[in-house]
């Protein structure tokens, strides 16, 4: 007899002690029985049983509690937009999270089985079970922070993305120091120091791109011709292969940079803008007279900023990810315990028969583990139906409706500004009905074991 454990924890899903006829040690006097039982029964009656009855009754009345609405509130669970979204999201949670977490737990349990430092590994994976969903939520708010300079998820995504994809027209192109422009290196925007005037073509040289790597392989640049009315100029790559050419002048072999946006800025506001043509030249209307020219940063890769983890589309998967982080350890430890009970000889026999490791895993290990997997899966399912804290903490308020789940909607409906105890009670009863099958299984198992 040592620690109570897994089997008990599966809430009677796994076995209790064998049935034994048990009698009082001595005929116990009734008042002693009452003394021992009464506190628990009073507490359970007042705090668990009474609320179930009250909720059933209350769910049949409207928000004030005065008008009888029959099953109206239950209809609202499906017709009220926010509540129905919550119901759908809860369905997504139940469909995805238990399977994901059980799968992770199975993988970890099987892979660590023969590793000598499995204890350390399991400790790390299990540790998140100790902390509150609130703390986990704050941890993942930080992980999912949109700015890649703060959120580690986007830092990784951007890092991977930029390794494989060059996203912008001329990323990292630079205004050289012999140009008239200044601005943050390789980022832009670059702005001319002096103002422009018609009849005086502007030269906007850029460097920092190898001539043979210019996107779109444009032709040679052309020096813009002066025009009486318009401001003209050229944007080009002031560098040619093998060197040579004059700095700050459009040489014959130097390439044009078409498609660069040019803005004329006066007193901080844009008065005119255009885009350089195929030969790198551009023309701005005469409003631009006396303005400074700016090459906005969008030309140089307003860099890829990663995914909008906490936006409406990704928020539920993101929160499920946080949940998997917390609960994979639970599944792993239970499954590892089951694995320890698997007869090694069966696995060896399969190997001797020529099965490879994958076949052994699929055809022998998993079927033998099936009872444990079911217990883990069902426990997670019950847990996921009632998920509240993680969603409440991680989903920012603007997308709370998109991430909503039943338990959160209950809280918002009943204890938010709506203060609708009727609908709130109906949601509570729906949650209760969802766990009823498990309750019935628990009771039947118990009765079978004890032959009631």
């Amino acid at each position: 007899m040592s620690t109570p454990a897994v089997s008990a924890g599966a809430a009677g899903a796994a076995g209790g002690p064998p049935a034994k006829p048990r009698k009082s040690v001595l005929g116990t006097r009734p008042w002693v029985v009452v003394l021992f039982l009464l506190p628990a029964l009073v507490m359970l009656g007042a705090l668990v049983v009474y609320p179930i009855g009250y909720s059933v009754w209350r769910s049949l009345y409207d928000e004030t509690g005065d008008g009888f609405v029959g099953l109206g509130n239950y209809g609202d669970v499906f017709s009220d937009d926010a509540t129905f979204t919550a119901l759908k999201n809860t369905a997504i949670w139940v469909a995805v999270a238990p399977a994901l977490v059980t799968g992770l737990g199975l993988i970890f349990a099987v892979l660590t089985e023969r590793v000598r430092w499995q204890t350390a590994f399991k400790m790390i994976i299990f540790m998140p079970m100790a902390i509150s969903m609130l703390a986990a939520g704050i941890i993942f708010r930080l992980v999912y922070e949109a700015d890649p300079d703060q959120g580690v998820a986007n830092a990784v995504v951007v890092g991977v993305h930029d390794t494989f994809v060059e996203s912008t027209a001329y990323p990292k192109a630079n205004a050289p120091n012999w140009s008239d422009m200044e601005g943050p290196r390789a980022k832009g925007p670059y702005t001319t120091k002096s103002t422009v005037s018609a009849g005086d073509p502007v030269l906007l040289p850029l460097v920092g791109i190898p001539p043979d790597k210019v996107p779109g392989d444009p032709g040679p640049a052309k020096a813009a011709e002066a025009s009486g009315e318009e401001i003209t100029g050229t944007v080009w790559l002031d560098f040619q292969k093998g060197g040579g050419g004059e700095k700050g002048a459009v040489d014959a072999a130097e390439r044009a940079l078409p498609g660069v946006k040019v803005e004329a800025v006066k007193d901080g506001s844009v008065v005119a803008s255009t885009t350089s043509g195929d030969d790198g030249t551009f023309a701005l209307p005469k409003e631009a007279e006396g303005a400074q020219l700016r090459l906005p940063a969008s030309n140089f890769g307003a860099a890829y900023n990663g995914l909008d983890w906490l936006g409406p589309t990704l928020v539920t998967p993101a929160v499920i990810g946080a949940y998997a982080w917390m609960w994979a350890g639970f599944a792993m430890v239970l499954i590892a315990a089951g694995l320890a009970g698997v007869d090694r000889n069966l696995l060896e026999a399969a190997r001797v028969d020529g099965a490879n490791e994958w076949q052994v895993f699929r055809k022998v290990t998993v079927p033998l583990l099936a009872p444990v997997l079911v217990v883990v899966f069902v426990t997670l399912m019950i847990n996921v139906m009632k998920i509240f804290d993680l969603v409440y903490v991680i989903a920012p308020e603007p997308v709370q409706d998109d991430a909503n789940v039943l338990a959160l909607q209950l809280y918002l409906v009943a204890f938010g500004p709506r203060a609708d105890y009727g609908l709130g009670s109906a949601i509570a009863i729906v949650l209760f009905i969802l766990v009823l099958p498990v309750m019935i299984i628990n009771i039947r198992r118990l009765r079978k074991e004890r032959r009631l």
Partner: protein
Amino acid sequence: MSDSSAASEFSGPTEPSAATKQPKEPESQAQAATASSGPPKRSLASRLATRSAGGVLRVFLILTALFWLTPAVGLLVSSFREPEDMTASGWWTVLSKPADLTTRAYSTLLENDEITDALLNTVWITVPSTLGVVVIGAMAGYAFAWMDFKGRDWWFVAVVAMLVVPIQIALIPLARLFGDIGVFGTIGGPILFHIGFGLPFAVFLLRNFFAEIPRELLEAARLDGAGEVRLFFTVVMPLAGPALASLAIFQFLWVWNDLLVALVFTTTDSQPLTVALIRETRAFSQNIETLAPGAFLSLVIPLAVFFAFQRQFVSGVMAGAVK
């Protein structure tokens, strides 16, 4: 129950040692092969495959462990940074210049009365809830295990049925009830709530544990003249140490980490740390300097419990996870 004890922690005394003594461990096998001492059992190719697979597995597991640690390390590192640094660059940049770390966020946090009061409230809520569940649950569990009364098994079935009742169902009714009896808004609300919803599991767990106590032991104590009450306190409770510890740890964590119940039943005067922190998240990016150390403050106790009582912790969490 004894069969599951070994399995209930990371490395029970039996199965990991069996695992490490597996003859197919990559190194020992390779060494045996080079020394060519033992009879060759497998082809060289399959030995090499096993060995490199072991290497890949090791790398995979190490990467997974790092991946699992990263989110929490991020919070920990962030909590030791200056607020200005936190908005300017990622926490990982600090790894190359640890001199920028500071405990300022923590000292600011601990000077904040709202936070320290909330931390105290957390303790005042957690301790009575845990004691209450353990004591009341043990008494009822003992009655169900060793006392005779009419309908005993049916009462016990009813308690087991309550194991999976979602706490959400009681929020609205108890908000009303607690209002009527005047505990709404005090720490009494969450204490009562947690005792109520902790009891089904406590009774279930402890009844099963008590039922395993050898009958002769109780009868002997009885013959020595111990009354039912004395028997319970001097014989049964001391024997139940491990079960009580697991239960207490689980209940402690459950209450300490609770957000929803406290959110509904407490006000700013009685709120525990979790509720005080959630108020801060409502304006997240402005308050990261409170949130990061605050979240860490709230998880340091559970983590300490985790490391101090690994065995009971794991079995407690495993056992109670169904809630």
